[in-house]
Structures are given as C-alpha cells and as structure tokens.
C-alpha cells in the first residue's frame, strides 16, 4: 500500500513540476510581448460597446461600479450601460433608478432568475457589435476598455478579450492573500492567453464580439459559472480568446474565510462540472492547448492539492499520535528533550527538492504577476499570507467540490 501511495505521490509531484515548467517556458518564449501601455491608447475606430451590470442585492457597491463605467476614457456615446436588477430584495432598485438621467444608461428590473438570465436579457436588448459584463462588485480602470478594444482592432479573429482582475483595496489578511493569488493569476492567465487556452472569461469586464452569442447561443446556467462555460463553448468552436494584461479591473473580494470558501467551492465545482460536460474535447488535437494543457492541468492540480493535503494531514496526525503516546507513557518528562538543531535530521528525500522547484516557480509567477499589476514593491511580506491561507483552506474546497460533484449537489451562490 505504501508503495502505491508513493507512486501516486511521485506522479502528482512530477505533474506539478511539469505544469510550472510549462508556464515558465511559455513565459520565456513570449516575455517580450508582455507590455503595459502607459499614457493614452488611441484607436483608429471606436466601436459601440454594451456593458451589462447584473445586480442582485448590490446596494452598497453598484453606484461606485457605475461611476467607474461613466469615467471610462472612451467616447460616451459609444458606451451603452445596462443596469439589470435581477429581483433584488434590498435597496438596489432605488440606487440604480437614479442613473436613468444619464443618456447612455438604461435600467431594467426583472424577477430573480440568476445571473445568466440577467446577462441574457442584456444580450437581447443590446444592438452593438461588442458586448461585455461588469459584476456590480467590481470597478474598471478608466483605460481598461480602450486597451481591450485595441486587441480587437489588431486581430479580426479575436472573439473575446479577458481583462486583468486585481483586488480592490485589500484590507485584512484574507484579502491580502487573495491579492497575491490574483496577481499570480495575472501571470498564469497571460500565459494561457499566449497558449490560446483560456478557460474563463471573467464576469468582471470580459468583452466579446456579439457574433459569439449570435453563433453559439446565449449564456447558460452552467453550474453557476456561466463565465466559464461560455469560454469552454468558445474553445470548443475554436473562437480566439485573448488576455489584455493592462486592462485593470478592481474587484471586491470576500473578507472572511467562510465567504471565500463558498466562492471558491462554486468556482471549483463549476470547473469540474463544466469539464465533465465538455469532456469530449479532452486530449483532442483540434482543440489545441486547451484540451492538452488547461483542462488536464486543472484536474491534475485539484487532485494533487487534495492528495498532498491528505498526506500532510496523515503526517500531522502521525506526529500528534507520537506526542500523545509520549505524554501517555512519560507524562511531562518529555519536556526535558533538548531542542538541539542537528542538520542530520532534515528530510532530504527527493520529493522535497521537487517541492522546492515548484515553490521557486510559483514564487516567480507571484512576483512577476505583482510587476504586471504594477504593485509599488515587487516583494512584500503580504505575499507570504497566500501560502498558509490557501495551503490550508484550498484543499478543503477542492475536496468538497469533488464530493459535491460525485453526489451532484449544487453549492449555493453565497
């Protein structure tokens, strides 16, 4: 049994290193293409864009979100904003009704039907060639839209452009840990963009050509992750998705571990179930790196993290078992143990070095991601919050998502 467990362990460790090396090699190939545009971006032609803001009980954040849209450096008459109240039970209705005075804002009220129904209402009402959504908990940088539209102008085949999502005003440790994770995400998503293998077109401010929906149909419920499913559908039809690393979106993140857990459970459950729904694309050559890298890597990561977690829990259990045993047989006498440090007892099994390689590459991704996010300091101690918080909690939502998938249960929204 121990040897089977070790074989699984080494295979998963090998895969983890493979994934990180793959990202790093992709970085080396494309590093010169990662630019952050300073100053004003100008387009030859400014196409009209519809931005839908679906709101469900967002009375506290929606006004700021809308104001950030009004401040976009883009011709005002070319930005149509739809505020869609998806049956909120709080004061959202009154807050968004105040915006009707703006000529480019339209407000809709509907019965609650879920985010994808609000988006589909927006799709139905929009008359522009470009369509996007902005979650009511996020703010756009003034240059975000023009920078994204630059990608469409450059390549007529680009069907959707995902932005760079960063954390808005991280306050506590949980949010700072997420800030690091989002920064790391900037790096990984840019690399997936180079690989043509993006699997999520984030709710905050991905812009699509309307043709995508005309050709492929509207949003679906998709296990509460409609922004993932549309990306899968696009990949299945070989529609190109780009990542615009300098179009910044500031999103509000969960303040507590419990809320973070709920959010991530929904994401991972969505990933597993969308992947199961689209399993026919896996390892099929015509779907490219999406089929050979993104999806297998995602699945392998979920299993690696869960398995490693199990192993760590086992080791911690073993350690406490020994301590309890020690206490039971000799009472407090074991406190006499000397805590002399002897390097002899440092574990030098080969997997330790593999883990070190993975950490070095992950650290690189974090630091480069911070550079991409234009953080003032590339290294900050808050980077370190990421490891304990995600290291301990992430395996739990991974395992729960696997469990829920097996039982086909659906996690609630929040």
């Amino acid at each position: 049994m121990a040897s089977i467990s070790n074989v699984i362990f080494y295979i998963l460790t090998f895969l983890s290193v493979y994934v990180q090396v793959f990202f790093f090699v992709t970085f080396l190939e494309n590093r010169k293409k990662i630019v952050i545009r300073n100053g004003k971006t100008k387009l030859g032609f400014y196409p009209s864009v519809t931005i839908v803001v679906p709101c469900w009980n967002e009375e506290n954040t929606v006004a700021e979100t809308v104001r950030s849209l009004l401040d976009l450096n883009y011709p005002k008459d070319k930005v149509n904003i739809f505020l869609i109240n998806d049956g909120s039970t709080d004061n959202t209705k009154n807050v968004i009704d105040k915006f009707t005075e703006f000529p480019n804002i339209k407000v809709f009220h509907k019965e609650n039907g879920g985010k994808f129904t609000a988006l589909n209402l927006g799709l139905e009402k929009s008359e522009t060639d470009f369509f996007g959504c902005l979650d009511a908990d996020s703010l756009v940088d003034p240059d975000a839209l023009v920078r994204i539209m630059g990608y469409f102008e450059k390549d007529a085949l680009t069907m959707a452009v995902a932005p760079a999502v960063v954390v808005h005003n991280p306050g506590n440790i949980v949010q700072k840990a997420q800030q690091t994770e989002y920064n790391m995400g900037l790096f990984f998503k840019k690399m997936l963009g180079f690989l043509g293998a993006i699997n999520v077109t984030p709710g905050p401010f991905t812009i699509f050509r309307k043709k995508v929906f005309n050709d492929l149909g509207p949003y679906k419920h998709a296990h509460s992750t409609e922004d993932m499913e549309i990306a899968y559908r696009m990949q299945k039809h070989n529609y190109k998705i780009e990542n615009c690393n300098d179009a910044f979106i500031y999103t509000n993140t969960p303040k507590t571990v419990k809320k973070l857990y709920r959010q991530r459970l929904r994401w991972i459950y969505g990933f597993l179930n969308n992947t199961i729904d689209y399993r026919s694309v896996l390892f099929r050559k015509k779907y490219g790196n999406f089929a050979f890298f993104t999806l297998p890597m995602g699945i392998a990561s979920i299993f690696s993290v869960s398995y490693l977690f199990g192993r760590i829990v086992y080791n911690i259990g073993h350690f406490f078992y020994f301590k309890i045993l020690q206490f039971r047989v000799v009472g407090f006498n074991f406190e006499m143990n000397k805590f002399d440090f002897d390097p002899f007892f440092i574990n030098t099994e080969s997997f330790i070095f593999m883990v070190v390689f993975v950490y070095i590459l992950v650290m690189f991704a974090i630091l480069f991601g911070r550079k991409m996010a234009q953080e003032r300091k590339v290294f900050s101690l808050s980077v370190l919050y990421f490891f304990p918080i995600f290291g301990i909690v992430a395996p739990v939502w991974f395992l729960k998502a696997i469990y829920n998938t097996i039982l086909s249960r659906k996690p609630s929204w929040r």
Partner: protein
Amino acid sequence: MSSNNIDWKKYVIVLLITTGLFFTAIYLSNYFGDKKINQLKTIQDQIAIDILSSETQFSLLSELSCKNIPDSVFSSELAELGNKLEWSQENLGDTGEVSYLKKYYSLLQIKDYLLAKRISERCGIKSAFILYFYTTAENCSLCKEESIVLGTLRMKYPELRVYSFDYSTDLSAVTSMLQIYKIKDTVLPAMVIDGEVLTGFHSLESLETRIKESFKLQEIKPEAKSVE
C-alpha cells in the same frame, strides 16, 4: 477560426526539463543521503576507536590499579548514534548500508557492554546499564512506548547506559545475547536490569524505582543544566 496548432516540441522539451529536474532531485537526495551515511560511519569509527582504546588501556592498567580505570564510551554518543540510525532506517529507506551500520552498532554496544562488565568485575564498580530488546520487523506498539520510556530515563540519568538490540538484526552476536537471556520474540519488549529479565511494558515510574535501587543513580537537575 483561430489556429489551434499544438507545439508538440514544447511539450517534449518541458517533459525533458521536468525529467531533468526529477533526476536532479534524486541526485541531490542521494548526495545528502550518502553524506548522512558517511557521517554515521565516522561516528561509528570514532566509537570503535574509543572502545578499542579503552579495552587496551584497561588491559594495560588493570593489573596495577583500579584507580585509573578508563571510562568506556560515553552513553550519550552511543544514544545519538542509535537515534540517527533509527531515523535513517525510517527516512533513507531500509537500505543495505543502513542495516549494515545497524549490525555494526549492535556489535559496538555488545563490546562496550562487555568492557563495562569486566571493569565492574575487576574493580567492583557497578555500572548502570539496561539491555533492551525490541523489534522493528512487526508492528510492536509496546516497543515504541518502551523506547520512549528508556529515552526519557537516559536523559534524566546521564550515567545510565541503554544498550538496545533489534530482535530482527541478523547477527550471530545478537542471537547469542538473545540465547543467553532466553528472550523470544513473543515477549518483546524485553529488558535486562541488574541480571534480571523483565518482559512486556514497564512504566517510567517502576523502572525509575528499580534503577535507583540497583544503581544509586543521581538525577540531573534542570538548574544544574542551566548553569552549564
């Protein structure tokens, strides 16, 4: 619509790099493993020299006087070696080299034990030692508990020597020790204190009382330690 060409060369290159890293990890692991084995060998050689030197010195001096009797190897050195060997067996894998070193260790313990016995016979000095037999071949939970008890005792009484022997060690000298004290694998853990064979688990309190009676040992006080 978009070109979804897969760059197979890259997949292969990344595979090669990863394999390279994997072998580097194995190389590093072996390198440090070897260093540890060498460290163990050095400690053992040192102990072997110490024992040989003590034996020789004893043979030279014993007929003259009991005043200058050499002290045999420090118990703490043997104990440290024992701990490191045990750790190596668990963490470096039960390689041929580790089990070879373990045999050597058993032999050194027996030699040290014999020397101490001869000194005490000749000069009437009673040295405090416990012979301890355990097994790693099967899951012996009582052995684990007894090892903890003995480790604690050794720390409380630095003069106390604990010679521990793995029942499964394939060495004729160890087999002879087992035969002398008539110890079978069904009664493990087993101890010999002051000539008496004790089998099964014995608590810290009962052993402490026993060794205090037999050997009149002094417990080291934490205050004394802090002065050092």
